[in-house]
């Protein structure tokens, strides 16, 4: 074998993290764009951050969510044995509880993708403006929550442990 088993799973974890970062960036841009739409071009960093063509992110967000989800689901098989058991033995119950909530959130987010995509592909329809904004902000919140929980768990027992 060219790489060790540990290295293999570490690479998968890093890929999962990188996909999550790309998703986080896309969703954050989009959420800020729907919460504070820019009416005219301006030069500041924050304004430029808000002024993205948000509709163009929809398909990429769906693809990234699914890829991140699948990578996470794959890693989860090893997490259950090599991470969760030591975390429980160390008594980090709340940390593990937040991981459980993260897996629930990831599935609920997965279920939102079809309607999210539909809303954004009909971004010209004002009937969907409110729901599109709420779904986008909810997905961004879930993404941030899952990212931070995953990051903390990696600090507790992740790369190199």
């Amino acid at each position, binding site marked *: 074998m060219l790489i060790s088993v540990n290295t293999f799973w570490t690479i998968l974890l890093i890929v999962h993290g990188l996909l999550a970062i790309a998703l986080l960036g896309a969703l954050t841009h989009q959420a800020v764009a729907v919460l504070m739409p820019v009416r005219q071009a301006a030069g500041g960093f924050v304004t430029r951050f808000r002024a993205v063509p948000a509709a163009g992110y929809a398909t990429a967000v769906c693809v990234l969510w699914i890829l991140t989800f699948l990578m996470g689901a794959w890693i989860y098989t*090893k997490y259950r044995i090599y991470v969760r058991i030591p975390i429980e033995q160390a008594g980090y119950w*709340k940390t593990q509880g937040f991981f459980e909530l993260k897996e629930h959130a990831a*599935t609920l987010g997965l279920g*939102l993708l079809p*309607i999210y995509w*539909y809303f954004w592909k009909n*971004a010209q329809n004002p009937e969907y403006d409110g729901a599109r904004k709420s779904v986008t902000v909810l997905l961004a919140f879930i993404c941030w929550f899952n990212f931070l929980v995953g990051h903390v768990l990696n600090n507790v027992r992740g790369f190199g442990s």
Partner: protein
Amino acid sequence: MITTTATQSTPTARAARATSSLAASVKFKAFVVVFGISVPIIYVLCEWFNLPLFTFHPATNRVEFWWGPARSGEGPTMYWYGWTVMTVLVGTVLGLLGTLLPESMVRRIPLALVWLLPVLAFIPLAYSLMPFWTK
């Protein structure tokens, strides 16, 4: 640059343009609305009543149909995969059934449900994790 969420034309003109044929389909709208509403409900039911489509035993890579207990010497069990697949499958079936609904009925479904139900789903899901919060 102007974000696409800004109102750039009249509502009627905006409503006329979907950016793909799928997004312009009435049946697809019915599917995504019913699917979006069904998923949080089904997932909470699956989690609450422990109804996975299958159980995965990660130590032995064994997959068992429906719910299976942890066996001595075989390590822990994982139900989340089974809940997720069950949720997606049942949600897809309900979504497909939703395409049979008349358009007027689909239009009456409050769109707020598609984001409100996932938010509300966190309450029973977080409550079910009480042992983790109270240890």
